């Protein structure tokens, strides 16, 4: 029968003392260690997560700022390129127009000169014709792109210390006695001794393993703490780096702007050079055209003058040739047939 007697008080006291000792010597340090570990690990992790979030935000800000700056610069660049192209087109058009004007002026001038020359040639045609006639007839006529491990350790520990006391209290204690016989004290003393022996045995048996376990665990935790710290440090480094970059985003944007401006300047310079080169080519082409047209006009004039002189000479000859001239021409040529053969 289950009975409540004084041993309950002793057992309670024993339990409380045990709990006190365990709490003081074991649970509290363990909990402190666990808390420290958690603080070290989870704290670091949380800190890392927070930092990571900050980092991502900063990174996003950074990219947003840089992207916006790039877009703006690209737009500016495109706009300036467009302006430069327009300027180039205008310059080229101007060069073409100048070239065209030059050509027109030259053509007018060539035409005028041609007319003057034609007039002069007409006069000279007469002289050239006269020369032909004299040559043919021989006589003169005219002139051209971490887990739940703390909970698993706590449940078996409480079971080891609380279960024998409760078992004794429930099965043998107060159910067999009205008072407190001496053998019961002796029995209790033996139980206490047993318990102490148990504790000692447990301590001796588990000391090494527990110590090893905790050392190993401590090492693992230490490693994890180190890793977490490293991660935090790395994250802080990155944050600092990106803070620095964010702080320097203005300089970055300014640098990009400067590069863009430099690029634009180089582009404009190249376009100016291209424009200059192309304008030069257009001008050269115009000059070549003028030279060609002048030459053609000269050739046409020469041909015209030649025809004029020849026709004049023909007319003169038809009109002026005499039977005596014919006789002399026939006799001279017959005499030369043998020589030319």
């Amino acid at each position, binding site marked *: 029968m289950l009975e409540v007697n004084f041993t309950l008080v002793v057992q309670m006291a024993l339990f409380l003392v045990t709990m006190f000792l365990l709490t003081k010597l074991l649970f509290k340090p363990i909990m402190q260690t666990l808390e420290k570990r958690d603080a070290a690990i989870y704290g670091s992790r949380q800190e890392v997560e927070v930092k990571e979030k900050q980092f991502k935000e900063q990174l996003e800000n950074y990219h947003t700022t840089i992207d916006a700056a790039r877009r703006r610069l690209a737009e500016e660049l495109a706009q300036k390129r467009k302006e430069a192209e327009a300027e180039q087109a205008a310059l080229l058009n101007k060069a073409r127009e100048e070239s065209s004007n030059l050509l027109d002026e030259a053509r007018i001038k060539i035409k005028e000169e041609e007319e003057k020359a034609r007039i002069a040639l007409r006069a000279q045609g007469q002289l050239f014709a006269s020369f*032909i006639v004299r040559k*043919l*007839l021989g006589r003169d006529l005219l002139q051209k792109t971490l887990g739940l491990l703390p909970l698993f350790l706590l449940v078996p520990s409480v079971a080891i210390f609380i279960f024998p006391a409760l078992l004794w209290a429930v099965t043998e204690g107060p159910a067999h006695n009205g008072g407190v016989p001496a053998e019961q004290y002796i029995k209790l003393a033996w139980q206490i001794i047993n318990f102490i022996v148990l504790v000692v045995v447990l301590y001796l048996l588990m000391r090494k393993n527990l110590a090893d376990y905790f050392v190993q665990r401590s090492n693992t935790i230490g490693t994890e703490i180190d890793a977490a710290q490293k991660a935090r440090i790395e994250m802080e480094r990155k944050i600092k780096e990106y803070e620095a970059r964010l702080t320097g985003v203005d300089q970055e944007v300014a640098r990009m702007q400067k590069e863009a401006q430099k690029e634009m300047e180089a582009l404009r310079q190249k376009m100016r050079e291209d424009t200059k080169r192309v304008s030069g080519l257009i001008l050269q082409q115009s000059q070549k055209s003028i030279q060609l047209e002048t030459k053609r006009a000269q*050739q*046409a004039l*020469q*041909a015209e003058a*030649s*025809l004029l002189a*020849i026709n004049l*000479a*023909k007319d003169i*000859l*038809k009109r002026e*040739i005499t*039977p005596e*001239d*014919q*006789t002399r*021409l*026939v*006799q*001279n*040529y*017959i*005499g*030369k*047939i*043998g020589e*030319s*053969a």
Partner: protein
Amino acid sequence: MIGDTVSRRYAKALIALVKKTGNYEEIGKELKDFADLIEGDSNLKDILYNPTINLNLKKDLLTLLIQETNPSFLTANFLRLLLDKGRLRNLPVIAEIFEELAFEALNKARALVKTPLPLKVHEAEFLRLKLEELTNKEIVLEANADPSLIGGIFVQIGSTIYDGTIKGQMEGLKERLIGRGGA
């Protein structure tokens, strides 16, 4: 072209026959006269050159013509052969080639001479002697007057041309001056 080749073959064959007798000029003249006779009469051409008309009829007509013109035996047989082979229409060309081959056989050359005014006899003789000396052939002058030549003289012997006319010199001068201006 094919016609010319065929004509040349007939002319060569006739020349080979004439070579024996040497009467190139006589045969040549008979061929030319007979060609002129047919070419000059459209009725004769319509009958003798038409392949749809009976051959015997054409033979009778040819016989009549031969009797009328009385050519040599060789010429008469040659004309009959041309009619049998359907080559009578080639007669004018054959006559020309025959004359050319006859001239070669006789070491003769024909010189076509043009002048604005008719050539005087002594000028013609002087030219003939000069050309004979140059070609080593007997020259037969065929002189014509062409006033467009303005002055001077034009002579052609086969493919060889001697142009001493004022018109020729003016054309040469024009080609050199305008050719040089165009270059």
